[in-house]
């Protein structure tokens, strides 16, 4: 659909009450042709009304909740009402039942508002084509009062009814709304204030859209369909709204067009939504009114202006600027009018967060990664293990090519599960081992068909028929299911484990328990910074927390210690010794392990010796003056030690500097910023020497995984040092300019987690697929010696592998497509196991189905990894262009084949992909693809490797950071304040914000923040006294401080790495850094703002279409 997502911000509110009621009922009654949902709708309606009034305002506000900003009053009311609203909303969806199914996305609570809007939008959306046209009127009507009511009403209803279903629509609508809102310059402020609000507002806009809705024929369907068909339709409907939003450009332009002055970018857009925009314009003012009015629902239109003004005050300066001219909006696309990630996330959370996700159905799109949900395994792997870019795969390669939508799965084989979910069962088939297909060797899974009374089974991947081994035979019941179906995890679950037999082991020998080797740099820098002492102290306690198999008393993992500078020191910590013994190996050119017995020991047995060693290491090197270090020999040493001990294991290397000492793998400083933006830029990402690649290969062969902790004070060539950790499935942690006081907590947390987390060794992963598609490309931290097997020396619960599939034949809609990911690994107790994840997907012959079942977050995950690998071989510019081009093609294909006909000037985005532009823009602006002046080469290389093994949730927040208004947090509840969009416009001088991207947490403090808050949070009396050297927030006994700290802790808990806390004061030097993460804004390094990029995308798409 066209960009529907504009924030529904102001408008909805403004109109909400009036509009809603009107809409809802009418909409349902009238438009929801399908009628099917009616009942539901009806039900909804019921609630709706109630909701409507309270909801819209409240719902939004709460979420948006910027009390300080615009309208305290509204806030209050919101909050109060919100609660109920939410509840209501939540309930509503269920009750509606139908609705949820329809769209699949049920936005229970907060969405109410949305949903209403959505519906409205939906209708609008449907009408999409017409929408634009209508909108104008609609919007106008709104302005006046609730002119659009009739139409809008309908939508609202739909929303309610459909809410679940049409989340997208809602969004679209929202977009539309927002657009409208945006149009009204006022909204922005509101938007800011509301943050979330915008979305809520949209509804109002939605109202306007409705008009549009009517126009398009689809609306009807959509309406009816909203639930089910909505997605698609939705999209269509949204288009209108989106149109408004997106087109903000176009439409805007259009709008602008009408008004003589049009902004340059807008022209293109204008075309599309001219009409609507025109209207929009009209509305804007209204909206403005509406917003302000929002608080005062009662008086939407009239009051608008003043409220706006009010907002301005509370809103940061940018907004202020905007406020005055309502015209501005015309020129510029209203940011609130374009699809909002926050809104989408919020909608999904509300719609899908309450019900467990049951995996029994083929091709189900799971909730977004940002949504908290439980999973019930009923035959397909949990989305925590596997997520796909699309859950509906084109049947033919032609279709796939046409759409350009990459088919990829993001697999996290050892993902950690929440405590409520059960870990995969371990199946032991004894000596015979797991049952497998004779031909393709696929493992027994729920999709295997038993035939001939259970004597044979047909492989679901290759169709080959295999005899059931006698010991595995079981009769079938009348439905053809084995009688023991529910007794056997491998027949009833999507994820499970097999105990591997000796045939699955290296050299046909069961593996020994793995070992951890701690290798500590003791050169001058490390000693001086206190790092060595810190590590040694920490290890003393940490060694008691080595990972162990579920029920075991103590960990089977053995440990060893090495220190090094220019030479290596091994330690004999055999339990029988009174004192540890140190063995120095200076022959770094030809590394070997000087001892066997006593190097790798059981922690409990050698406890005193180890303690003694860890006490003495810092003393021994206290006076060291050695500044040079080696690196490759350190890895070799670990590798040799593991070889000698005949086990797999992990090296924890703590390293500080570029290895310039004479030794294999010696590096030189080759950092050269001049290479940026040249064809040679790629060399910065490539290793200096192939030595490390070969070393990595050896490590993988032995199952030697390397985790690297870096503490550089200058360039140390992460691109090269990272090769081995990267290819062995290890991690890199980097603490630039490490300082004990500020960084130790972060480092220790990372270290603890890294040591304790679940990990498998010596792993091989293979992905089998139904005939027709094939895994062709792999991204992540691993090594491949052939084209099918992903080998990882170590694999932990955070590591993710992205696999791309290509067609090599046709698929059938009936049988769908199956994936089976089999991971053979050695557990931390030395048990050889196979972990199997199965996932069934739908296949489609209609492009629309594909676009309806996509997951943008996963898509971005894939695209980012694809692009980040691309920079190794191509100039960065080429990579960026390719990305843009591919996305343009995806969207153009949709527009061409799936969207309802509409003006070429209209930007129409698939509902599932409406965030694609904004996210893609974030990827394009990321440090790797577009480095700012302050980004070091090492940082880029580091991030590049980091992203490559990120899962979807991590990439999501990494590229689009989470921005939380702390001052809006409810100190009495556990919940997080509603996030706001990443734009400076949304920041208020009087507030404190928190921004997290998985690596850093920024706490941004506005200049006008009340002293009381500052006192409460930082323990200082004024803004100027806040120290930005803080690495943690002071522990203060007041609700606000507690709340903020608990938020920070909660966020830290969600991420695999401990994030660095940075205090940023507004207008301080550090603010530049912070602004870098406001990804919707223009970046200093030249990255486009969201709006600009959207315009650009639109242009691209139009080019493709024409």
């Amino acid at each position, binding site marked *: 659909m066209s960009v529907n997502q504009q924030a529904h911000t102001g408008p909805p509110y403004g109109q909400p009450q009036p509009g809603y009621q009107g809409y809802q009922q009418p909409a349902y009654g009238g438009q929801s042709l399908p009628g099917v949902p009616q009942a539901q709708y009806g039900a909804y309606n019921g609630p709706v009304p109630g909701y409507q009034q309270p909801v819209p305002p409240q719902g939004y506000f709460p979420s948006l909740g910027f009390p300080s900003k615009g309208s305290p009053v509204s806030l209050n009311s919101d909050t109060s009402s919100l609660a109920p609203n939410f509840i209501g909303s939540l309930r509503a969806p269920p009750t509606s039942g139908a609705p949820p199914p329809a769209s699949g996305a049920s936005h229970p609570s907060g969405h109410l508002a949305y949903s209403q809007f959505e519906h409205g939008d939906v209708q609008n959306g449907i009408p999409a084509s017409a929408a634009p046209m209508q909108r104008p009127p609609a919007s106008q009507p709104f302005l006046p009062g609730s002119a659009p009511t009739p139409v809008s009403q309908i939508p609202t209803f739909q929303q309610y009814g459909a809410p679940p279903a049409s989340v997208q629509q809602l969004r679209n609508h929202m977009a539309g709304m927002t657009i409208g809102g945006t149009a009204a310059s006022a909204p922005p402020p509101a938007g800011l204030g509301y943050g979330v609000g915008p979305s809520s507002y949209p509804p109002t806009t939605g109202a306007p859209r409705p008009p549009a809705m009517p126009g398009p024929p689809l609306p009807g369907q959509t309406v009816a369909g909203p639930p089910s068909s909505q997605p698609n339709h939705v999209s269509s409907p949204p288009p209108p709204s989106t149109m408004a939003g997106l087109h903000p450009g176009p439409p805007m332009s259009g709008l602008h067009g009408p008004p003589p002055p049009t902004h340059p970018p807008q022209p293109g857009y204008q075309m599309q939504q001219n009409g609507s925009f025109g209207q929009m314009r009209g509305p804007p003012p209204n909206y403005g009114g509406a917003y302000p009015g929002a608080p005062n629902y009662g008086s939407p239109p009239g009051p608008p202006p003043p409220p706006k003004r009010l907002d301005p005050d509370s809103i940061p300066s940018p907004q202020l600027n905007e406020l005055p001219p309502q015209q501005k909006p015309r020129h510029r696309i209203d940011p609130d009018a374009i699809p909002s990630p926050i809104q989408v996330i919020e909608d999904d959370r509300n719609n899908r967060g309450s019900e467990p996700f049951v995996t029994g159905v083929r091709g189900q799109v799971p909730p977004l990664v940002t949504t908290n949900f439980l999973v019930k395994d009923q035959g397909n792997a949990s989305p925590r293990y596997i997520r796909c870019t699309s859950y509906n795969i084109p049947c033919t390669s032609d279709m796939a090519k046409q759409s350009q939508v990459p088919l990829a799965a993001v697999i996290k084989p050892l993902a950690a599960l929440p405590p409520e979910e059960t870990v995969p069962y371990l199946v032991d088939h004894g000596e015979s081992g797991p049952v497998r297909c004779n031909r393709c060797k696929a493992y027994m899974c729920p999709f295997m068909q038993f035939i001939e009374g259970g004597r044979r089974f047909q492989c679901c991947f290759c169709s080959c028929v295999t005899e059931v081994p006698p010991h595995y035979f079981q009769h079938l019941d009348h439905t053809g299911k084995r009688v023991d179906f529910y007794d056997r995890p491998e027949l009833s679950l999507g994820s499970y484990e097999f105990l591997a037999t000796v045939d699955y082991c290296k050299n046909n020998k069961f593996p020994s328990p793995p070992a951890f080797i701690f290798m500590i740099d003791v050169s001058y820098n490390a000693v001086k910074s206190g790092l060595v002492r810190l590590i040694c102290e920490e290890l003393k306690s940490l060694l008691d927390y080595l990972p162990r198999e579920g029920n075991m008393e103590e960990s089977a993992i053995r440990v060893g210690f090495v220190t090094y500078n220019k030479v290596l020191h091994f330690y004999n910590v055999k339990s029988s010794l009174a004192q540890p*013994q140190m*063995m*120095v*190996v*200076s*022959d770094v050119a030809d590394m070997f392990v*000087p001892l*066997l017995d006593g190097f790798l020991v059981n922690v409990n047995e050698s406890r005193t010796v180890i303690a003694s060693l860890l006490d*003495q290491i810092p003393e*021994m090197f206290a006076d060291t003056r050695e500044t040079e270090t080696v690196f490759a020999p350190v890895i070799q040493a670990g590798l040799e030690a593991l070889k000698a001990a005949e086990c797999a294991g992990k090296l924890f290397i703590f390293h500080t500097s570029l290895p310039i000492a004479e030794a294999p793998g010696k590096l030189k400083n080759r950092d050269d910023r001049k290479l940026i933006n040249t064809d040679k830029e790629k060399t910065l990402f490539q290793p200096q020497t192939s030595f490390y690649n070969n070393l990595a290969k050896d490590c993988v062969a032995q199952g030697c995984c390397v985790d690297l902790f870096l503490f550089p004070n200058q360039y140390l060539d992460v691109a090269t040092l990272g090769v081995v950790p990267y290819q062995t499935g290890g991690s890199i942690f980097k603490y630039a300019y490490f300082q004990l006081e500020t960084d130790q907590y972060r480092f220790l947390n990372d270290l603890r987690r890294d040591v304790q987390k679940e990990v498998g060794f010596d792993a091989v992963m293979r992905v089998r697929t139904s005939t027709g598609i094939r895994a062709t490309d792999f991204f992540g931290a691993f090594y491949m010696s052939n084209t099918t097997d992903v080998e990882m020396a170590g694999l932990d619960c955070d590591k993710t592998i992205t696999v791309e599939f290509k067609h090599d034949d046709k698929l059938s809609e009936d049988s769908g497509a199956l994936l089976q990911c089999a991971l053979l690994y050695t557990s931390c107790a030395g048990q050889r196991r196979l972990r199997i994840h199965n996932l069934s997907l739908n296949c489609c012959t209609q492009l629309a189905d594909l676009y309806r079942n996509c997951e943008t977050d996963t898509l971005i995950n894939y695209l980012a990894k694809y692009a980040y690998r691309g920079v190794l071989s191509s100039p960065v510019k080429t990579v960026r262009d390719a990305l843009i081009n591919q996305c343009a093609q995806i969207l153009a294909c949709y527009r061409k084949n799936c969207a309802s006909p509409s003006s070429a000037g209209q930007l129409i985005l698939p509902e599932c992909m409406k965030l694609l532009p904004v996210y893609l823009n974030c990827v394009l602006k990321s440090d790797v693809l577009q480095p700012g002046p302050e980004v070091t080469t090492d940082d880029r290389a580091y991030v590049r490797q980091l992203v490559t093994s990120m899962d979807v949730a991590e990439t999501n927040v990494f590229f689009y950071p989470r921005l939380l208004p702390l001052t809006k947090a409810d100190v009495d509840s556990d919940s997080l304040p509603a996030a706001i969009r990443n734009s400076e416009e949304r920041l208020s001088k009087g507030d404190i914000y928190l921004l997290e991207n998985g690596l850093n947490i920024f706490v941004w403090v506005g200049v006008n923040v009340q002293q009381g808050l500052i006192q409460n949070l930082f323990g200082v009396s004024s803004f100027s006294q806040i120290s930005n050297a803080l690495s943690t927030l002071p522990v203060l006994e007041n609700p606000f401080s507690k709340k903020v700290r608990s938020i920070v802790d909660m966020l830290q808990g969600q991420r695999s790495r401990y994030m660095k806390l940075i205090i940023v004061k507004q207008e301080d030097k550090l603010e530049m850094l912070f602004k870098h993460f406001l990804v919707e804004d223009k970046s200093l390094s030249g990255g486009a703002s969201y709006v600009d990029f959207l315009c650009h995308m639109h242009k691209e798409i139009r080019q493709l279409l024409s």
Partner: protein
Amino acid sequence: MATYLEFIQQNEERDGVRFSWNVWPSSRLEATRMVVPLACLLTPLKERLDLPPVQYEPVLCSRPTCKAVLNPLCQVDYRAKLWACNFCFQRNQFPPAYAGISEVNQPAELMPQFSTIEYIVQRGPQTPLIFLYVVDTCLEEEDLQALKESLQMSLSLLPPDALVGLITFGRMVQVHELSCEGISKSYVFRGTKDLTAKQIQDMLGLSRPAVPMQQGRPLQTPQQPVISSRFLQPVHKIDMNLTDLLGELQRDPWPVTQGKRPLRSTGVALSIAVGLLEGTFPNTGARIMLFTGGPPTQGPGMVVGDELKTPIRSWHDIEKDNARFMKKATKHYETLANRSAANGHCIDIYACALDQTGLLEMKCCANLTGGHMVMGDSFNTSLFKQTFQRVFSRGYNGEFRMAFGANLDVKTSRELKIAGAIGPCISLNAKGPCVSENELGIGGTSQWKICSLDHNTTLAIYFEVVNQHNAPIPQGGRGAVQFVTQYQHSSTQKRIRVTTIARNWADAQTQLQHIEAAFDQEAAAVLMARLGVYRAESEEGPDVLRWLDRQLIRLFIFHLRRSPFLQVFNNSPDESSYYRHHFARQDLTQSLIMIQPILYAYSFHGPPEPVLLDSSSILPDRILLMDTFFQIVIYLGETIAQWQKAGYQDMPEYENFKHLLQAPLDDAQEILQTRFPMPRYIHTEHGGSQARFLLSKVNPSQTHNNLYAWGQESGAPILTDDVSLQVFMDHLKKLAVSSAS
């Protein structure tokens, strides 16, 4: 003759010198005709209780090419305070300190009884003695334990300020740092990779301190080179530490799979030891003591692979050119030996194993540096324990019987030139007017370096008479030889011992009887034997025998021909190397024993008496005591053995029998107490398996071939095809006659 015997003995006691000829043929031609070269056995540090060292510098001849030391043979003009060098006839002023000199006030070095004199000089810094233990850990538990105890014990025998170091090796080589508290620290090297001295020093972190080292070596300063002290520490400081360290020493932990030898990196260990001392204490006395329990099986210097199925090389393999590692290994150890010798460090080898340990390849380490070589069956035997203990034995005055870094300079009168030397030394390549072009042994020089020597160390030095036949030496002319030995005394003092001897010239044509009379048969035998052994080492066996036959056939060296020094039959290459090593350094008496073992008989018929080394000496009612230097064999005759079994010695009425049994034991004990290395002690009886030691040595006058011809009343038949002395003599006589014709 008696006079000559006395003269010879007296000379030996005073100067430690035995010449083959004590009156010298006066021309080259005559000397050549004598067959036995003019040569001497020199024991440079012969123990002289009556020789108090003088505490000043020797006076040297001022001619740069001469530099002979003032000696009793010099003519002195007391009035002019001048002296004439008796080698180059340069006239020299006495130094100012000798101003008070006169006929009645002579300095010691001018007195005739001080033909040998020892000076103590204050020259250069003094360094404490250095002992670097290089210990094999691939031993059986028992052996290792015994070795550890021996080593711990040895710490108490060392002078307190001596520096000790420890290197252990097995599959890896560990250099232990001895200075650290708490954690014991060692540097580890892989046993398969040879490293240059530079690399070793870099890896041990020894390269930088080179500068402080040279400054920091002043007299006994506590301020020793910081770095080197990490590995070499004064005994008194780290006594406890090292004792613990040795106590904790474990067997090499690397698993040895069945059918394999443990991987032993002897070559690299030695190389590191040499490199370590080279980098820290060049040109000062130091002792590397290698204790090994098996052959090197990996890396440079490996002697045999680790597969047990391939046995270590035998003489047979060597002849067949089938010893694939031998040449390379030999070369490796030779290089090490030369490096070590160049720095004045010596290498001892204590090899204890039932099988060979590669002494053949490693022998040069001991041979070139003057180190000891000890071969035993196990470290857990008294042979090793006592021998090792004896290394640290002290002399009368409580001084160690060892000296280091000796530099032997030989000066001769003009009629004489130096052909070479044979002994535990290396050439210093000092060319000079008195160096002959013909080499015998290590020649081409007038100076040799002996890195380690004791009071018995004896060198054979060969001369050549160069005087032409037509330039007769005036009647009564004497030739002189001066031996100047500078060395580091065990008290770390620098000392110089000067021995000047003179012998009369005689015209062989007119005074042949004088020359004959002054022939020292024993010295000649040993000197020739040394030449033979030296050749045997460097040439193919049979050729040497033939040469020896040609040379010695007239010298009746029957036993030498049969000795293990020349015969390799029934000896492993290691044993041969071992025997030859000792032969090349022992003094005359010992050498003679080695050539012809001594056999004593004990019986009721009279006091113990020496008897012929002949099978006929083996009688039932005799106890025999044979001393071959390497073995002490006590052999009970058949009857005696039966009596003993019957327990007569325990009956009071047969106490005399008890005494008879005890007598040889006491005598043997005496020998055991004094000899180094301690001989293998064998107590056997008639028909005992160990009796073979005796039977292989005696002259097989009775064999299974002629048993009946000789009657049965005496002796014991030897089962051998070797010819007996009788046959040898007969043949010899025939030959002498025929060659005369």
